[in-house]
Each structure stands twice: as structure tokens, then as C-alpha cells.
């Protein structure tokens, strides 16, 4: 079982996956902070995690995905704290023998994360930062 789950402070940078043995498909998803929320410009998102529950839930979901989709490895990194627009706040790397389970696992994991993992994002509005 090759599972990595980690919450890190601030934007995620310069991270590359583990070496793959006998893999056929390596799929990597990066969530990037978008410049707007609800049509208003933001300078970034502030992430709050309820720990250790957030890490535990990520681990539980990763275990479940490993088993249900027959993965070779799954790596989940999520930011906490402030992440500016255009920077990465979430990385999911899935390694599997075949493409279809890898993509299906990715879709399932991100849905499950949004449903179960106690991490909240709060927009930091551009005007708020400037004190207006």
C-alpha cells in the first residue's frame, strides 16, 4: 500500500510523485486558485482544516480508493492557510496499471473529498486586502 496524505501550509510547490514500478497510467490533478468567487475578484483563498479529522478523512478515502479501484499508489496534498490566485492548493496523484480505474478513482476521490473532508475555503476579496 503506497498512500501519502499531507496538509501543508500555503501553496503547494515543486512536488513530484514517487517513482512508478509497473505502472501503466499516472494521472496528476492540480487544483489552482481561480481569480474569482461568485463573480467577484479575490486575491486568494484561505483554507481552514479541522485537524486531525481532515487528515484522517483523507487517509480513509485514500485507503478506500486504493482498494476499490485497484490503485498502485495515491498521493494527496492539500494546502491550509492562504493560497494566492494562480497558485496550487491541491494535488492528487494516482498511479494504476490502467487508465480507466485511474481516471475513475480521481473523479470519485475529488467528489468524496468535497463531501467528507473538513476543509473550508474562505475567499479573500481584493478590496478587503486593500482595506477598502
Amino acid at each position: 500500500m503506497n498512500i501519502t496524505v499531507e496538509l501543508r501550509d500555503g501553496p503547494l510547490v515543486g512536488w513530484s510523485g514517487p517513482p512508478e514500478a509497473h505502472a501503466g497510467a499516472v494521472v496528476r490533478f492540480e487544483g489552482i486558485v481561480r481569480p474569482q468567487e461568485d463573480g467577484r475578484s479575490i486575491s486568494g483563498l484561505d483554507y481552514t482544516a479541522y485537524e486531525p479529522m481532515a487528515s484522517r478523512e483523507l487517509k480513509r478515502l485514500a485507503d478506500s480508493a486504493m482498494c476499490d479501484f485497484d490503485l498502485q499508489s495515491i498521493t494527496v496534498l492539500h494546502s491550509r492557510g492562504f493560497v494566492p490566485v494562480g497558485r496550487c492548493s491541491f494535488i492528487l496523484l494516482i498511479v494504476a496499471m490502467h487508465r480507466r480505474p485511474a481516471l475513475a478513482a480521481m473523479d470519485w476521490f475529488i467528489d468524496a473529498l468535497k463531501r467528507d473532508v473538513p476543509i473550508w475555503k474562505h475567499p479573500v476579496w481584493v478590496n478587503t486586502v486593500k482595506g477598502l
Partner: protein
Amino acid sequence: MILTVKLFGPAARIIGSPELHIPESGAALTCGTLRLAIARHYPQLAELIPSGRIAVNHSYASDEIVLTGGEEIALIHAVSGG
């Protein structure tokens, strides 16, 4: 005795606090009756309760789970990570 419930995200902003307090009624309290009690004592949160979940000691707990008082309790609602 008073039960403390941790709040996050929208719920914490509505209440203006990272936790809320529910007086215990004496009758055995379950996660289900706690949800009802939160909605009664904090009507501002009533809308969030149907889709919110109670976490007990960092795991989601179903409505029939009985609370004995020493647990860490949180109201988990509308997570949005990823």
C-alpha cells in the same frame, strides 16, 4: 452541564464564534437530538442542520450515537476543500 460544539466555515461566521454551547437536558443526548437542540438554540443555523453532520472525536457519527459528555463534538457543514 453544557455541551460544546465546534464550528467551522459558514456556520462559524454566522455565529461569530468557533464554537457554540448547548445546555444538556438531562435526557440521554444523541447526535440526532443534538442536531435538533442546535437548531432550537441557534435558529440562525437551522437551515444548515439538515445537511450538516456531527463529528464525534473526529469521526462522523450517525444520529443514534449517544453522547456521554467527554467527547470532542463538531458540526461539519458544507466543506469545500480541493
